[in-house]
């Protein structure tokens, strides 16, 4: 079983400032969702609402069709793992793992197996762990939670590249093994892009785009070739970005229909895909004024 998510007209205020403004969002069950946004866009706040870490100022947060707030049956099957984890720093690694057993579905043996795999010192205090090891501990607790909705908020920060790779593989193996919903919030977009099925882009407290990853891939193209030819083809298209080096120009455009594609090819222009990260950078650029 896996959980769907529904936010209806959700607003969250920190004193006078709105971290989320009137957000409406539906996340389908059983998929891997990417949650992207610039710093301060509201990603952590949104995830905090989905895990009942916070109560919205207004609106409704539903998980698996029911309200998440104070709903033990649902919230016990939802896990939000934040960067560094929510541990009692004076605890040992082993105790921190065992605290996870508050969750009925927590798989202690799996957690200890992962701790061994990632070389976590069980008897060390959490406060004495390096940032990377602390992130590993958080990731392990998230995986072992065996949650129906598992959310990882920048949990990979501090992990070195091989550890991150091992984490992604473990996450994917668990996903293949057991149907559940995953939300990954990250700034390392290219690293996770291949795993994502849907992508939500938050910007300034609102949902900027929410599409299947294929839709994002179709959303743009990079045209590279002689500057004049590129300019000619790009006329009438929404240009996200331009780069010029001597007589060669590269233009990132949003939509490229079949006739334009043929015309570009005939003009000797190379057509390349737009990476999710590039698209994200352009879509959330301050110059786009909310896009």
């Amino acid at each position, binding site marked *: 079983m896996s959980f769907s998510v529904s936010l209806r007209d959700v607003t969250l205020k920190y004193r006078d400032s709105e971290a989320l403004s009137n957000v409406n969002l539906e996340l389908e069950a059983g998929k891997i969702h990417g949650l992207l946004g610039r710093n301060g866009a509201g990603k*952590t706040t949104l995830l*905090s609402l989905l*895990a*009942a*870490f*916070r*109560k919205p100022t207004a609106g409704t947060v539903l998980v698996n069709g029911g309200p998440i707030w*104070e*709903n*033990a*049956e649902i*919230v*016990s*099957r*939802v*896990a*939000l793992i*934040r*960067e*560094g984890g*929510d*541990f*009692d*720093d*004076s605890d040992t690694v082993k105790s921190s793992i*065992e*605290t*996870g*057993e*508050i*969750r*009925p579905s*927590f798989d*202690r043996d799996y957690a200890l197996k992962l701790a061994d795999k990632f070389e976590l010192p069980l008897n060390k205090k959490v406060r004495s762990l390096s940032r990377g090891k602390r992130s590993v501990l958080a990731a392990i607790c998230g995986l072992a939670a065996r949650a129906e909705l598992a959310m990882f908020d920048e949990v990979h920060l501090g992990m070195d590249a091989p550890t991150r790779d091992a984490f992604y593989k473990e996450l994917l193996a668990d996903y293949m093994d057991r149907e559940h919903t995953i939300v990954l919030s990250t700034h390392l977009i290219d690293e996770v892009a291949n795993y994502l099925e849907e992508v939500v882009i938050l910007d300034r407290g609102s949902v900027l785009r929410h599409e299947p990853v294929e839709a994002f891939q179709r959303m743009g193209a990079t045209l590279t070739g002689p500057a004049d030819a590129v300019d000619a083809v790009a006329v009438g298209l929404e240009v996200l970005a331009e780069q010029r080096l001597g007589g060669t120009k590269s233009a990132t455009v949003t939509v490229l229909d079949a006739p334009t594609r043929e015309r570009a090819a005939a003009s000797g222009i190379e057509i390349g895909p737009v990476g999710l990260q590039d698209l994200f950078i352009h879509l959330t650029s301050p110059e786009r004024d909310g896009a």
Partner: protein
Amino acid sequence: MSATKTLQLPTRRYWLGPALTWEALKYYRYWFVAAIVLSALLPFLVSFSRDIDTSTWSYTANIGAIFTAIVAGGFLYSLAPSFIANSLTRRELVVSFGLFGLTWGLFCGALVFAGLVAEHAYYGAMGWTQSIEYSGELTVMASFGQAAEHGALYLLAYPLYFLGGAIIGAATYRWEGTGWLIAFPVAVVVIGLTDALSRTVPTGPDWLRFVTEYAQGWGRGAVLAAFAAALVIGAAIGYRLLIDIPVRAKKA
């Protein structure tokens, strides 16, 4: 902590509280042993240089009350975010800590009660006088009954100290930077009522005496009524502080 019946979803709010008491008692077991040994050893050593006329255990009991408040506040401050992050609801948290406070307070209160009675026997065997200080004078606990009567007060006082500590811990987490200020009114109420009930001098900072001594003249019935009211109102305040407490992001 075992993940058997303690943490089964329908019952975890009830089992978690006593489980916390058990874990805390295990964690602090050497502190308890040290307190008991020192309370017995200290008057014995002092008796070589002077007469023993005050109850050492009553000092231990007062320190224990403050310790109880610190345990409550410290545990709540550090465990609440971790427990909520691990899927405990706020209501479950409130009930768990309520039961933690009740079982811890009653256990420690019973320990103090037993200690005072045992001390009475110890002092009697050694030919010493067991007394407590009240209004600048020593009030002698002349019988087991008087020692037990004084000891019984701690069965009420410890849960109140726990509640006070829990309120301070919850407020400190909830309102980062300013929440700890609630310690002042909480300390006045908790210490004032306990002192009024036990009819001993106020414990704590000297300036507090001017605030707490007002209640010393009350009759026992009035103090007990105020005590009960403080427990109920304190529990309501604790509930209100915790029922929608946010889990803050840790500072990087």
